[in-house]
């Protein structure tokens, strides 16, 4: 499978390096980092590329580069999912995934890594199952992500920036707190044309759970009754034009975490699960059905009457939600050609 796994800091320092097969050149991390760094102007290095017969696959998480090197024709999806999972496990155990956290906990990370990958082949990879084998205690570092406003949103994770190790659930000193956090994170992508009409929109959402429940009790989660999924469902919803569609939640497609039992989902929209420790996406969904965007954008470009060499660009952003709500960490980006 994979010959090497490594984690590089944003500056290219090797923080973690594990070699499994010994068939990769010594300077692989430098070769890899140079390639990623200097891929080309205006373009980003793709997650998979090959140099000198070695395929490098990487994911970027919290500024860190988690990468694997191999000489085989592996399934890229397996390797990238594995890398992502490793990132998730480190986060579950150290509370956050950051350069500082990995450096401080490098022995713990190696310990985890040895259980996750043996000889380049993935082994146990759930934070839950790994607890059995892990002995080192995490050194928690403070998360800086919360202070910087938009960061919590932009990385697509829940706003619940809880910093807690899954190893907390095994504490016996009385400091243990049984908690579970359920966040619904949605990303709405909408395109308006120049006259302000909504051209296309899509919602990508996920129910993200962070569980720290000792003893892993079963939980149930009920979703709206009027949830419709996929085309089959929408065909069965009754007559067209009956006007009932507005109150429905319609999804194109969704998928569920392994731990979820769907026995009562069809009839009652009930999800049953025994949540494993740590963070995971309970359900992910996608909807392209009509939705009302929270904002509308209008733009207007006109010549400046005062000067022949100037144009005026007017961008109007209109909030479409009630005055009892407010948006935080709103950012506007106007791309401009370089001078």
């Amino acid at each position, binding site marked *: 499978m994979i010959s090497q796994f490594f984690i590089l800091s944003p500056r290219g320092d090797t923080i973690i390096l594990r070699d499994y097969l010994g068939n990769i050149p010594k300077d692989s991390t430098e070769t890899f980092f140079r390639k990623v760094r200097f891929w080309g102007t205006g373009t980003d290095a793709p997650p998979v590329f090959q140099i000198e017969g070695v*395929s490098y696959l990487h994911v970027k998480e919290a500024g860190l580069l988690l990468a694997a090197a191999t000489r085989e024709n592996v399934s890229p999806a397996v390797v990238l999912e594995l*890398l992502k999972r490793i990132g998730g496990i480190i986060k579950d155990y150290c509370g956050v995934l950051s350069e500082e956290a990995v450096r401080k906990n490098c022995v713990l990370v190696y310990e985890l890594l040895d259980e996750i990958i043996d000889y380049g082949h993935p082994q146990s990879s759930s934070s839950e199952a790994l607890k059995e084998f892990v002995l080192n205690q995490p050194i928690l570092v403070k998360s800086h992500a919360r202070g910087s406003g938009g960061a919590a949103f932009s990385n697509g994770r829940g706003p619940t920036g809880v910093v807690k190790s899954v190893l907390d659930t095994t504490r016996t000193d009385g400091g243990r707190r049984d908690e579970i956090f359920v966040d619904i994170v949605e990303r709405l992508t909408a395109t308006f044309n120049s006259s302000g009409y909504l051209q296309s929109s899509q919602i990508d959402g996920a129910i993200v759970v962070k569980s720290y429940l000792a003893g892993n009790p079963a939980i149930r989660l009920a979703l709206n009754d009027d949830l419709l999924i996929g085309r089959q469902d929408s065909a069965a919803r009754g007559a067209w034009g009956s006007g009932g569609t507005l109150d429905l939640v319609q999804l194109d497609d969704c998928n569920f975490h392994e731990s979820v039992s769907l026995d009562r989902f069809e009839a009652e929209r009930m999800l049953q699960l025994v949540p494993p420790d740590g963070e995971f996406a309970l359900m992910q969904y996608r909807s392209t059905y009509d939705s009302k965007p929270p904002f509308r954008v209008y733009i207007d470009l006109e010549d400046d009457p005062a000067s022949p060499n100037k144009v005026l660009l007017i961008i109007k952003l209109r909030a479409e939600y009630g005055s009892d709500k407010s948006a935080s960490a709103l950012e506007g980006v106007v791309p401009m050609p370089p001078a």
Partner: protein
Amino acid sequence: MASEKSRGEVGELRSQLMRLSGGGSNTEKIAQKRDLFRRLIMLGTIGQDMSSLFMQVITCAASDSQDIVLKKSLFQYITTYANANPDLMLLTINMLLKDCGEQDPTIRGLALRSLCSLTISNLTEYLMAPIQRGLQDRHPYVRRTAVMGVLKVHNFDAEAVRNAGMLETVRELLTSDADPMVVSNCMSVIQKVGAVHELLSKDLLYSLLNRIKEFSEWAQCQVLDFVSRYVPESKEEVYDIMNALDDRLSTPNSAVVLATVKVFLNLTLSMPYDHQQVLERIKDPLMTLTSRDHYETAYVVLAHFLVIAQRAPVIFSSIYTSFYCRMNDPSYIKDLKLQLLSAVADDGNAYEIVTELTEYVTDINEHLSREAVRAVGRIALEVQDVTGLLDRLLGFLELGKSKVTAETLIQMKDLLRRYPHIAEVAIASVASISPQDVDEPEARGAFIWILGEHGNHIQDAPYLLELLAVDWTSQAVVVRLALLTAAAKLFFARPPECQALLGSVLSSAAADTDQDIHDRGLFYYRLLRRSVEEAQQVISPTVAPLSSFAEEQSPEMMDRIFEEFNSLSVIYRRPSQAFIKDGGPSGTASETGGPITVPGPKANGAAMAAAAAAASHAPALPLPVDEGSSLLGGHDDDDGSDVLRPTSAANSHTGDLLVETFAEAVTAPGPASSAAAQQAPPVSDPMADLLGLSSTYSSPSPPPPPPSPQPPVLALRRDAQLQPAVFQQLWGRLQASPTFTVPLSATAMTAIQHRQQEFCRAVAGRGIVRVASGGNPVKFYFHAQPVSSTGRLLLEVLGSAQGLKVTIKAEDPTLAVSLQELFSEAVTSFA
């Protein structure tokens, strides 16, 4: 400095290790040791060599051998550095062997894992016994570690593994072990050893499938890989497997989903209807995976989308809006989406897609705007109504962005090669560009190619070429080559205006230091001296419009990539042979893996086009190219250019001489100059002598290549056109000839079903033109018109499980039989 510092650190660590080694043990000391080991590992990670501390490390840890945290750190250290200390190896092995017999299964497993990581081949004997014991251990953690141990040993001593009968044990565990992780590792071993096929039975497969949910996601992928190699006995079995795996498509793990998709696609390859259903089924789950925040996995899924879309564009032609770029997509995602958009574009959605792409053309990111132009070019090449899209492309020329203009010209060139008839529409916009504004060599080459090929429509063409030819030496090689060919071509079309141009270009070429340019210049010169008609046949022959480009990936190549679905081949867009070396794990493979190659017609220099055209005639020519240098007085290449230097110094007047020569020697195609040609000058022409060419004239040369192969029995017009309404009217009126069937395999039928446009183009290559098509099973209506008469020929083609059922109706029924032959031949060659 650095080494001194590291020596200092190593020395400090050494003294601390020694300090902590002695004396008794207490919790405080253990904590200190743990911390010390942590530093040791950290320093090792950043590349410092800690191997010299081996002895001290082992002694230090030995005194607290009951502390597992410390033990783990120790094992980690050992596996990293033991290989550097072979003499201390035995010490280590003894310690690990002892730990393999511990009570605690975790320690047993850890020790076994570390033991197996010592990769020195002459130690195999020490490993066999603990691995054998491990395979029979009562704890699954030890068993699974032992199975991986088998794999490790197998990698450097396969013989030993076979002799010890370990593979048999592994096979047994594969079918009988209760722990999924053990089974998963057994699968890894079987895969690695290459014994999948001999083991793959229905029983094994079904037992794996029945418990697939127990496995980790990675092990599920392995099971799915096993399934994808299995050949079911019946259709019922196919459905059974697919029903058992259907819910794997709704997992959030892209690896599992893609592995399942591969199984489904493979299973239904010979069942066109079900294959179609599968493609419909996988659309939504894959789409959901691409919409996540994880760009990396989205990238992989989109790359697989592209492979499927190229095989079956019809499936995605209705959901093309999902492939529109989002502002914050990374560029590798945008690139793939643009390729997807051009792959799924068809007559129905091309305008919508191009409208969206036009937005990207004005993006501030130059890379994106270029790729967008390229995508529009690709789409225009594929759709039927090319003129509508041409307007968009021509519009890009007016944006005044040099990169966009450059890319547009390159695309225009390919477009004109496939659809010469659009030249009249396109030419006005192209001609309005000033050549100085096109500074990229490739684009400039394309521009010159257009001027040369379609110069008879462009008033200023000779003048524009002259402008460029003046700066001969400052032009790039591709530009000079293109100039040379364009000047020659234009000369045949407009001799009086281009004589001077051709003369100066030829003399510049003769004096050029680049071997290719030099040779091509001489080659043209000699051809022209010999016979202008023959030169025209070689340099500017009437070429049939291109139906495909050499850079396009061949269907065979695409099939091979498809066979390796869910692997790196899909990402690199090459079959694995092209990038994987099987030369052993430590081999120094020198294969330079490029980044992902852009599929589809890759834009190439105009010179390439010209060269290709010329090359197709080259074998029949009397003058092999490399003879050129020896003709110049027996010098080798380097000297050849030296000899030519004086010529370039005297360029001003040799150029004139050449012009004169041509003015007299050349039998221009126009009737006006034919009189001049009668008075061909003697061979003692100064220029000809200077180049030492006189001898070549006397050498006998074989006759020019025979004209292209005989026309088929039934000659059809390539440009036949018929309105669907007229077709219907005729169809109702005419008598049908007997119906016949072109027998085809299920795979070929699937190919036709999914690549209707390509199929229509292949048939159109024979003069049988599509009127309408679509549906499932697929239907086509074609028509054809013989060159010799106006009588129409109509075809109705219906897809069925056996092949294509064809009905012909002809105004002249005698032609029906030859049309039948022609059509069958076209179909078989496509399939």
